[in-house]
């Protein structure tokens, strides 16, 4: 991961576990083109409080002086959906799939999670949506849980080696332990408090955050830079514990095909383009190509699950995605070595350019996937 401020996130409350509640609900388009919400530093005005179930666009305008956050809360107070970082004087369109029920919409000036709110009633039944998307989403969740189990199992072996101070063995097990995580990284990143604890890179930390640094990359640095993990046992235990916490939260997670799947696939390629192609992610171990492959695999899985729908709605996009996934995969094959990949510091400028070109070639059509899935 390459967040701007990593540990700052850890202080935030557990991030919303569901963005869009229903799967592919294709409800009636709002005739008026959206529900106007006017937020100020101390008010939150919604133009309409009787809404029809289905896909709803809130047009949120921040007329106040502070950065605002817009939330839709369920009767139990849990967040159904939220949109952060709405700057003063700006407005955003925020699409939420609303099942029938009572909700509270809340504007939080200063993004504290608190602020003025208004009740809204949603009635009717959201259109059934595409059953294939509902199935794809359910299948994807199964995949996510399986990959997290994989990562936990391999991390346990990695941590055992760390605790035995077996540097050679730990180095061997480091990259494989991250594969599962890297395939589902955008979902894992939804838990803003866990992600920085397990996957923060030293170069992304603020000076005052360095003392709280933990996770894979701390152990990576110890293994490759210091050549010793003596005294680092506690970081191994903590890594495992954090991953277990993540696992305990997954069952309650609601995923949606537009933001979490199509959007997640795009984010996985962004990860490759900004962190892996440059060799920044694994600055010490140079195992970037292992992460690279895992990110691409995670995006490919999402595309494969969504493909029947994409094929039907935009056959040209499906062909472009097929071609470009194949392009990246065949290029990666060139760098295979044993069970893994060559060390990225041995990959020359020309080969890196080819990889970057292939990632751009795939990333561009992938960025169009969400729109097709949302149709």
């Amino acid at each position: 991961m390459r967040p701007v401020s990593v540990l700052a996130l850890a202080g935030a409350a557990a991030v919303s576990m569901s963005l869009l509640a229903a799967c592919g609900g294709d409800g009636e388009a709002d005739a008026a083109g959206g529900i106007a919400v006017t937020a100020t530093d101390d008010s939150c005005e919604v133009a309409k409080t009787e809404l029809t179930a289905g896909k709803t666009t809130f047009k949120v305008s921040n007329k106040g002086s502070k950065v605002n956050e817009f939330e839709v809360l369920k009767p139990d107070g849990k967040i159904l959906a939220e949109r952060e970082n709405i700057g003063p004087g700006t407005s955003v369109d925020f699409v939420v799939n609303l099942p029938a029920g009572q909700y509270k919409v809340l504007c939080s000036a200063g993004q504290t999670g608190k602020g003025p709110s208004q009740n809204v009633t949603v009635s009717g039944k959201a259109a059934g949506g595409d059953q294939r998307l509902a199935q794809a989403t359910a299948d994807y969740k199964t995949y996510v849980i399986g990959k997290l189990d994989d990562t936990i199992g391999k991390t346990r072996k990695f941590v055992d080696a760390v605790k035995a101070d077996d540097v050679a063995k730990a180095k061997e097990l480091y990259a494989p332990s991250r594969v599962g995580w890297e395939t589902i990284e955008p979902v894992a990143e939804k838990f803003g408090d866990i992600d920085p604890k397990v996957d923060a890179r030293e170069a992304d930390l603020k000076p005052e955050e360095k003392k709280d640094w933990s996770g894979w990359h701390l152990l990576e640095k110890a293994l490759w830079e210091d050549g010793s993990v003596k005294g680092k046992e506690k970081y191994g235990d903590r890594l495992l514990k954090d991953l277990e916490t993540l696992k305990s939260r997954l069952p309650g997670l609601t995923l949606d095909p537009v933001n979490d799947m199509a959007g997640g696939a795009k984010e996985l390629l962004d990860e490759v383009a900004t962190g892996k192609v440059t060799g920044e992610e694994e600055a010490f171990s140079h195992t970037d190509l292992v992460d690279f492959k895992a990110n691409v695999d995670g995006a490919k899985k999402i595309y494969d699950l969504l493909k029947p729908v994409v094929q039907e709605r935009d056959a040209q996009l499906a062909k472009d995605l097929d071609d470009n996934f194949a392009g990246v995969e065949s290029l990666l094959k060139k760098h295979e070595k044993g069970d893994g990949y060559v060390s990225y510091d041995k990959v020359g400028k020309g080969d890196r350019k080819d990889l970057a070109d292939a990632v751009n070639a795939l990333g561009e059509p992938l960025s169009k996937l969400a729109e097709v899935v949302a149709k």
Partner: protein
Amino acid sequence: MTGEQAEARPGMSRRRMLGFSGASLLVGAAAGAGLDRVASADEDGAAGAAIAFRGAHQAGIATPVQDRLHFAAFDVTTDDRDRLVRMLKEWTDAAAAMTAGRPVGNGAAAGSPVAPPDDTGEAVGLPPSRLTLTIGFGPSLFEKDGEDRFGLRARRPAALVDLPHFPGDDLDPDRGGGDIAVQACADDPQVAVHAIRNLARIGFGVVAVRWSQLGFGKTSSTTPDAQTPRNLFGFKDGTDNLGESDKALLDEHVWAGKGDGWMAGGSYLVARRIRMHIETWDRTSLREQEDIFGRGKGEGAPVGREKERDKPVLARMKPDAHVRLAHPDSNHGARILRRGYSFTDGSDGLGRLEAGLFFIAFQSDPRKGFIPVQQSLATDALNEYIQHVGSGIYACPPGVREGGHWGDGLFA
């Protein structure tokens, strides 16, 4: 370029353009009036105006030179000919929109909220800024490593030669060549960069940027009575350039002739990245500087004459003076249309300016234009202060007709 219609639809442009109706007039009536001066006097008029994208010839060649350049060379990364042609059509639509001051596709802030916008948005609110986009095809598009590409080998024009090695060349392959080149020129750098960025984005998966170059100051004029801009050595060079009003000379020296097949009405572009050794030049005496160029530094007059545009007397210059060696009279009448830009890419790590001239020349046949002239320059006194470090040659097809697209003649 007479008789063209400006593409812009004022109602849809990035902003309301005052004096827009004058655009086609300015383009059509050509440059005798000295567009440069008009431009600075009336920003909303000439400087902001749109240059017609379609016509007999591509814009950006004889068009009065704009202030800024972003030149990009692309490698084609697909083997799929149809995919390449599809992209060239998408590029054509985007180029027609951007040169008219309109955004790409459905714009920067419309469209689906879950999709990235069609246009990247940084030119929203800016006038067309006389943007021109000129495409050219490099030798490697037709054949590479002895292999035919896209079935085009037989359509490679004879004039699209591989440039020979010239004495003193130190060419960086990462700063030269390329299957397709696009020259973006505009009076606003943001408009030129926006154009290349959006074309690169549309092209992902079909083409990849091989190299690109920004130019910040024009070094030549194609408007005969405008002042010749100075290069980074402080000299006016290329005073006797071909201009838009020289119809007969353009037909003879710049536009490819009827016998040149799909290239008829097109032109051949030679680009050279010429690094200038700024620091050593600046330590050179005025007399030596003037001797090297064969011109005075102040007015820019040829040796022994008074005004910049007085006819040079070559025999009065030193035998190795730049003007003397480059002059048509020393090259059997060879003439080229120069359209180069100064560049400064920061510093080179040794504290020296990474600066020079991004030389661009158009001609009807490089074998009778750039190549003999450059061979004459082998003994140029200026060579002590410059080095050619990047190179490209591209066949720029004729202009796009109504309903046509970039490359339609080549891929017909």
